């Protein structure tokens, strides 16, 4: 039961994906169902239906079912075939024939884990365990090429909505981003110097709006004024624009179109001359407010829409409060996996589907030219350091803003985020406030069918727009009805209309996520059913009295009812309140760490600055050990000439044998073997000739060169091969995956943390006989410095220290979260103290400890007189970083090719820079010879021509330096220069700058 409730946290991902697979994909295919031959229009291919099969793969003609764990291990993509039902025409000898075929695989669709199409769907714990899957794993991500990838929730300004804002110059702007069936466009109407203009990127510059209105067939100025509203204030504001239009001499539609014709941008590549004529008309038809459909050649809907935009803008001009807030969550839409995948799928349906999907998922580059989308970093690898982290990753929301911009607006906490987005969880640093997280109970909607809702609206008394005159549009007491950004018409009794719709929603006749919003100021009723809106559950109240009564809650607690029942019975608008507690239950189940006996005191002095002192005997007994796994994979490459790499059995004697210890007789390292750095994992050899004609027969041994696959990048000498997996990759090359395991015990420098963010490195490890012990003989596992408390004020940890101690002495779990206190579940400090006293401890948790070195009772540090010592059990786990992974030093090693300087970074075995400060240290120390060598001698010798000052070269035949500029070697001197300096000179020369070296004797 818990597991099913848990899924709430990633439910939006699953829902959107399920929606895409079950409905979205069919719609897309229906729209793009025909592919016709360009040569013979009679030949075509038509998709009739499409469905997703079971996750499987076809390898060498063998159909094989796959599961996620299998894909993770063998670097595969967890995907299912897309089976299409097609109809096509073939032509044989001039005879056209119509054929039909079922279950044609047109590509492979990556499957989201735990979605309805995943093999894990609806499985219980044992079945999941059999598939190698953790029962607590939430799913909601993909496995692409063996990596777990999450499609981040993308935050966007909503499409098809009018937004009034003030631009940089202080002009009022009404903009709308239209997402039409085929393209995306942005329409901007702005007010500049009291005149109103239209900005559209197809026009060279701004065009007067009145001209546009005329071009759309509203030739009478009066009608425009009527459409905007007959309020004299609006008319006054419109006057300058009308006058301007008149000054251009534009009076008729014809004149207006001619005027606009000149303004249309010339296409960059002039292709067809034919469409030269009515470009302006085309732009107005297709680009201008693209989401408003045309009825035949009637521009009426667009005209009204433009008029409403203008009206909203003028309203804002008169009343500044009417300006919209871009950061308002209601103006945002969240794109989830399903939506993102469907836009991508639509784009690539006529292309290579499986490849395109896989590449987009694995690189995170969403590039859809048609909608001018080019986003990077849409997918990320699921972080798995802890369970909570993985969950948090799935609710993370990526903004569309650039992170580097120094803006405060979008980063600030918006009041409208209340209950929708978490007010606390946002990263520190550059993306602070931009990357957000969904709140626990929120739900992100998926698209809902529009047709029935629209006709429902008409049934409920909405007067159709087409039948209204401009005058009627804004008549008082009637409200415009706007559905998903489209103006449907108007309604005379908006409140009645809205409550009728709401009643329908609560009774489940229309979708539970349809929102109905009556905007009194704008005299509009907004109805939204589009995807990407965030919702949260709310209790329905009738005249201020909650519909949920006491007996409901009791039934809920007893498990008689679920939240779904509440929803069904119309008690709440949307479900799930309990998940928060569930998350905590799970956290206990998958806690990352160990309980430790901790003494909060100062000891040995190796615990300053948050360092901790550890007990060696505790470490001996297994405290704080962790297992690190790394994956290494080797590919047996097959080359174009059909030669392929091969694996040789190991040699057991001689020089090479030592490195081949881990190898089995088949030349592949065996599981369970202990392996060191640079040991062979696969004794591989590569043919010398890999190109040219296909080789036949056996290639002799001499034609191979050894290219062993060695263990690299794993420090330490205790690596063990955990698992070895052999499989074939896409090109049916043999792949060998090694999973290498290291069991590590804590060492000095490893970083540890408790659950309260109190982190610290291990400062020293002390023998048990040198450690402190209590009167009862208890010896702590680690010692933490009390100076970590005052400034950090981690009261929670103090309570945990007490609770832990009480917990072990009475043998009961103590509940210490902040959520239990009002309900009385939590153990209060008073009760904990009582338990402690009952078991003979001090109420404050302080103990007297004997020092093992000074032969007496430890004395207090005088600065901190109140705490003596707390000897307690505290959850002290989570090894954060380990020195073994960080430690790095090198003598000689690889260099960058271009500059010949040592490479950078540990991964590339890079050098460590002796920088300014290090130089200062050496000077201060007096190591002058070392400095001299490092800075002066350790350079490369170069030949410099004294006459021209340019660099020459050393001719090995003549054994003399030669200047290639002077064509002789007469005035050559050898000089030491850093290679990078020589490179700079040459680069300058290539830019026609001559750097000349003037040499003189010192």
């Amino acid at each position, binding site marked *: 039961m818990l597991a099913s409730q848990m899924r709430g946290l990633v439910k939006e991902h699953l829902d959107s994906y399920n929606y895409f697979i079950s409905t979205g994909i069919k719609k897309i295919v229906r729209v793009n169902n025909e592919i016709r031959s360009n040569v013979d229009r009679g030949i075509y291919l038509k998709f009739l239906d499409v469905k997703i099969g079971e996750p499987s793969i076809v390898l060498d003609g063998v159909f094989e079912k796959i599961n996620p764990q299998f894909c993770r291990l063998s670097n595969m993509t967890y995907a299912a075939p897309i089976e299409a039902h097609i109809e096509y025409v073939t032509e044989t000898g001039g005879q056209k024939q119509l054929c039909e075929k079922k279950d044609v695989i047109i590509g492979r669709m990556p499957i989201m884990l735990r979605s309805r199409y995943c093999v894990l769907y609806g499985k219980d714990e044992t079945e999941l365990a059999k598939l190698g899957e953790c029962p607590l794993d939430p799913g909601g991500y993909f496995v692409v090429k063996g990596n777990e990838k999450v499609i981040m929730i993308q935050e966007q300004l909503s499409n098809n909505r009018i937004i009034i804002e003030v631009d940089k110059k202080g002009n009022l702007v009404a903009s709308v981003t239209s997402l039409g069936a085929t393209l995306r466009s942005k329409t901007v109407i702005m007010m500049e110097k009291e005149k109103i203009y239209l900005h559209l990127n197809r026009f060279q510059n701004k065009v007067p709006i009145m001209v546009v209105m005329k071009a759309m067939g509203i030739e009478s100025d009066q009608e425009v004024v009527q459409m905007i509203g007959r309020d004299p204030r609006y008319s006054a504001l419109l006057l300058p624009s009308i006058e301007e239009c008149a000054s251009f001499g534009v009076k008729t539609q014809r004149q207006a179109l001619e005027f606009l014709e000149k303004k249309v941008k010339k296409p960059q590549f002039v292709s067809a001359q034919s469409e030269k004529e009515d470009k302006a008309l085309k732009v107005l038809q297709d680009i201008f407010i693209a989401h408003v459909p045309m009825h035949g050649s009637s521009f009426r809907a667009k005209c009204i829409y433009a008029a409403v935009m203008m009206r909203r803008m003028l309203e804002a001009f008169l009343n500044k409060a009417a300006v919209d807030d871009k950061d308002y969550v209601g103006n945002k839409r969240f794109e989830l996996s399903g939506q993102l995948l469907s836009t991508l799928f639509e784009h690539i349906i006529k292309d290579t589907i499986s490849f395109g999907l896989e590449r987009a998922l694995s690189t995170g580059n969403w590039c859809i030219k048609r909608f001018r989308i080019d986003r990077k970093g849409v997918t990320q690898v699921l972080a798995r350091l802890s369970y909570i982290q993985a969950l948090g990753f799935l609710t993370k929301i990526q903004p569309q803003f650039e992170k580097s911009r120094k803006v405060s607006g979008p980063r600030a906490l918006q009041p409208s985020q209340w209950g929708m987005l978490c007010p606390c969880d946002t990263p520190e640093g550059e993306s602070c406030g931009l990357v957000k997280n969904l709140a626990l109970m929120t739900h992100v909607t998926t698209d809902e069918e529009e047709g029935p809702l629209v006709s429902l609206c008409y049934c409920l008394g909405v007067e159709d727009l087409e039948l209204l005159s401009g005058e009627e549009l804004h008549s008082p007491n009637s409200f415009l009805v706007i559905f998903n950004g489209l103006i449907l018409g108007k309604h005379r009794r908006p409140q009645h209309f809205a409550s009728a719709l709401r009643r329908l929603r609560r009774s489940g006749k229309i979708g539970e996520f349809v929102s109905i919003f009556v905007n009194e100021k704008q005299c509009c009723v907004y109805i939204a059913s589009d995807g990407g809106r965030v919702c949260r559950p709310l209790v329905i109240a009738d005249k201020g009295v909650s519909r949920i009564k006491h007996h409901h809650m009791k039934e809920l607690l007893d498990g008689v009812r679920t939240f779904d029942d509440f929803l069904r019975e119309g008690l709440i608008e949307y479900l799930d309140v309990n998940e928060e507690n569930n998350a905590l239950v799970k956290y206990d189940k998958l806690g990352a760490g160990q309980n430790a006996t901790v003494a909060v005191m100062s000891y040995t002095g190796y615990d300053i600055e948050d360092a901790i002192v550890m007990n*060696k*005997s*505790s470490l*001996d*007994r*297994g405290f704080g*050990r962790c*297992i690190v796994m790394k994956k290494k994979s080797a590919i047996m490459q097959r080359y174009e000439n059909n030669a392929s790499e091969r694996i040789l059995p190991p040699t057991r004697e001689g020089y090479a044998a030592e490195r081949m210890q881990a190898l089995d007789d088949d030349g592949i390292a065996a599981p*369970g073997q202990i392996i060191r750095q640079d040991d062979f994992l696969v004794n591989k050899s590569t043919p010398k000739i890999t190109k040219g004609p296909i080789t036949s027969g056996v290639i002799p041994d001499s034609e191979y060169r050894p290219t062993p696959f060695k263990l690299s990048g794993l420090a330490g000498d*205790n690596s*063990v091969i*955990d698992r070895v997996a052999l499989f074939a990759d896409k090109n049916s090359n043999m792949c060998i995956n090694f999973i290498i*395991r290291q*069991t590590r015990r804590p060492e000095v420098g490893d970083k540890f943390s408790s659950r309260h963010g109190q982190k610290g490195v291990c400062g020293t490890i002390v*023998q*048990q*006989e*040198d450690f402190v*012990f209590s*009167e*009862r*003989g208890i*010896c702590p596992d680690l010692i933490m410095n009390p100076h970590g408390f005052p400034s950090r004020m981690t009261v929670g940890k103090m309570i945990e220290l007490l609770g832990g101690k009480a917990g072990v002495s009475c043998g009961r779990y103590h509940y210490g979260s902040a959520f239990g206190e009002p309900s009385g579940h939590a153990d209060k400090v008073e009760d904990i103290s009582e338990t*402690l*006293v*009952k*078991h*003979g*401890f*001090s*109420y404050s948790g302080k*103990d*007297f400890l*004997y020092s*093992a070195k000074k*032969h*007496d*009772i*430890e*004395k*207090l540090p005088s600065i901190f*007189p*109140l705490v*003596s010592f707390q000897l307690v059990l505290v959850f002290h786990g989570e090894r954060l970083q380990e020195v073994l992974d960080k430690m790095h030093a090198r003598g000689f090693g690889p260099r960058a090719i271009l500059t010949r300087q040592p490479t950078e970074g540990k991964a590339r075995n890079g050098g460590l820079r002796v920088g300014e400060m290090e130089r200062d240290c050496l000077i201060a120390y007096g190591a002058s010879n070392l400095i001299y060598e490092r800075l002066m001698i350790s350079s490369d010798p170069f030949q410099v021509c004294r006459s021209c000052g340019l660099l020459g070269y050393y001719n090995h035949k003549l054994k003399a330096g030669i200047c290639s500029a002077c064509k002789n070697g007469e005035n050559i001197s050898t000089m030491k220069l850093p290679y990078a300096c020589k490179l700079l000179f040459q680069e300058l020369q290539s830019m026609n700058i001559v750097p000349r070296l003037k040499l003189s004797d010192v």
Partner: protein
Amino acid sequence: MPKLPDHLELKRTRVSCKLDAPNDTESILYSGAYASMDVDNSSLESFFKDFKVVVNRITEDEIEFDMIGIDAALANAFRRILISEVPTMAIEKVFIEKNTSVVQDEVLAHRLGLVPLRVDPRLFSYKSEKDEPNEKNTIVFGLHARCEQKEPRRSVKSEELSWLPKGSMFLLEIENKASSSTTAPKTYTNFKSSQDELPELSDNPIHPKYPDITLARIGPGQEIELEAHAVKGVGKEHAKWSPVATAWYRMLPEVVLLQDIINEEAEKLVQKCPANVFDIEDTPTGKKATAPRPRSCTLCRECIRGEGWDKYVALRRKKDHFIFTVESTGALSPEVLFTEAVKILEDKCERIITELS
């Protein structure tokens, strides 16, 4: 012989435990510390005169005794030696032939290492890295556990470790086949005789001290086959060789009633103490509190918590009286362990004396 004034004598011999912190925790070792008062602080004579050991409690694994008239430094030396320098036998090398359980090899080996073995370490000698394992320095255990296909998941317990007195049964990979045909095949150990022929071990076979330590869990079809070699070592190197679970001491508690506590107050005091230190005595003047069981004081300081209570009760510790507890892990009985510790300290002293002379 002059005596120190009372307040100094108190400082010299007692630790006073206050609510927030202990006072006078240092021990004054210097013989001339009180020379200005004509008091001799040297303790050798008084040590001879006063030193005694009283055993309070002794069981198979645990001993508690009082060590009276000794300085903390010496008592601590015994504790330290017990923890880290008295040798025992513990599993050091594990040869894993087969391990198909979910427990990783090194984790299993670590667990095996921590299993306490019931064997007298004095019968064995230390094995250095270059020594060949023989009957004098190595004990071999075999473990072969299997869970059959139809059986339920089960635990592998320490009792399944069986002692192999003849040494390792695992054959070394044969280096040259010709020479090994006549002699017995080489194994990982080189035992000249069987260990169970030793008189001490013949009727007292070596086995893990506790039979019910879980080593691993194996499911159907899983199998563990291994050989574990135990050698002699000390706790300083690894805690598995420590002969004691822990050894510690505490100073003798002293609960002093500074004033007469009568009637309600007395009852309150008895109520307050969770360790049941106080009693009530009926006197002609009324009920009076007494502290007949100071030993059970756990230093929770409930009795001196609250306004003014520290004027009635003083909690002290006697600096030269140690209640010593040794918990053996089972190789040797706790009293033997302590005498071993004394011997090691003797050796150390002798070594220093010879080095100095």
